[in-house]
């Protein structure tokens, strides 16, 4: 049994939050550069160029990439041979979020009740997903998830007769009806199958996959390619102002489901696709 202290986890989470908030990943930068070279609309190319410039300014001047520094999303895959010591895990994660959002001058975007809407003042609580996995390591992933793109996400409880075409239509419609709202070019996470909540979890997990990597199953990977082509053929473009780059990637994860069901969840992320991970 390996021991790992909550203080170590918290310190690394603060580093991940800092890293994701100020530095756009290499894959994201490459995807924006490639999109800029391909984009057919002049205004679309100008927007993509602004986004690349924005990433440079953020990194060089220590400014957050976007003012919406997100809900703090924390994924922990904890090896079953790890013993977490030195205190309770959840308060340690909350402390790390509070410190990172305060010390890095990030925006505090959480309200304590959905209707009363009083800001909690320290971006707590984060949303934490914990899984127990084999081994004696902890894999921690962080994502800063913006509100504008999260609002454009949808779950469809389709029925089996809808089939592949029905699923594809639902996904394309969800992205296209979102228009310029979620800050395209977007990254589209799709959870196909499972049940109501499982599909949503899969869609979020799909967003966490390294940008542009394809699904393991060949039929899912083929659907990703077709979906990306269909979405970009609709012409909404960067910021919804017209063009051929509406999505940078579509990631699908599928899962077994009930004989009566065909759930599909579409979780949209903006071009400021901010995530970071560490293995402890």
């Amino acid at each position, binding site marked *: 049994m390996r021991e790992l202290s909550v203080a170590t986890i918290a310190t690394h989470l603060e580093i991940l939050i800092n890293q994701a908030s100020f530095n756009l990943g290499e894959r994201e930068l490459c995807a924006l550069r490639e999109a800029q070279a391909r984009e057919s609309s002049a205004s679309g190319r100008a927007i993509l160029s602004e986004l690349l410039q924005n990433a440079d*300014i953020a990194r060089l001047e220590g400014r957050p990439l*976007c*003012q919406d520094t997100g809900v703090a999303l924390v994924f922990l895959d904890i090896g079953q041979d790890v013993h977490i010591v030195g205190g309770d895990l959840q308060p340690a994660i909350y402390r790390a979020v509070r410190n990172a959002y305060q010390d890095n*001058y990030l*925006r505090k975007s959480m309200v304590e009740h959905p209707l009363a809407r009083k800001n909690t003042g320290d971006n707590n609580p984060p949303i934490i997903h914990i899984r127990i996995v084999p081994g004696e390591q902890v894999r921690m992933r962080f994502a800063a998830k913006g509100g*504008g793109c999260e609002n454009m996400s949808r779950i469809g409880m389709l029925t089996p007769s809808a089939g592949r075409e029905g699923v594809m239509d639902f996904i394309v419609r969800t992205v296209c009806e979102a228009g*310029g709202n979620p800050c395209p070019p977007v990254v589209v996470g799709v959870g196909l199958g499972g049940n109501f909540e499982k599909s949503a979890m899969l869609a979020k997990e799909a967003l966490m996959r390294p940008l542009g990597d394809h699904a393991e199953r060949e039929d899912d990977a083929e659907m990703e390619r077709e979906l990306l082509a269909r979405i970009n053929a*609709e*012409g909404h473009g960067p910021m919804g102002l017209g063009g051929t780059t509406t999505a940078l990637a579509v990631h699908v994860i599928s899962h077994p489901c009930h004989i009566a069901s065909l759930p599909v969840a579409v979780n949209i992320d*903006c071009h400021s696709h901010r995530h970071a991970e560490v293995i402890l």
Partner: protein
Amino acid sequence: MSEPIKLTTPLTEDQTRVLRAGDQIRISGVVYTARDAAHKRLVELLDQKQPLPFDMDGAIIYYVGPTPGAPDQVFGAAGPTTSYRMDAYAPRLIALGLRGMIGKGNRSPEVVDAMKQHGAVYFAATGGAGALLAKCIVKSETVAWDDLGAEALRRLEVVNFPVVVAIDAEGTSLYGNQAME
């Protein structure tokens, strides 16, 4: 794309009526920040027949909730938020002379009707370019509702703030081919 048009606030109806969807604009002068919570309070003040915290006539509202600035910055990042959430409130402010709104994404038919009637325009700034846009903001002071944190009502001074006319005062829109519920 043609040379950007330079506009200085406050805007007159004569200035806004000639702008066309697609025009690249650089705004200098004063813009006010307000997003979800501040809009709710502005409309509550109108309902109670109370004065508003700033003069709406000729004003521009920027839909933004900036990050706090590091010690040498006004803000760290300050890009637009999605505008449709303000659609329920915007027509009443447009009727009072609000002449420009800066945000991202499409607007409702009710907002566009009010814009046509009163000569207001809707500008889009690039969402997610918060670091770049923050550099065009040279000064900020809180006008009201400090308790709202990032959502407080602020008076900003901007220089050459880059936007595009997304919907003009004739109702012509760059979001032509997308569904709007």
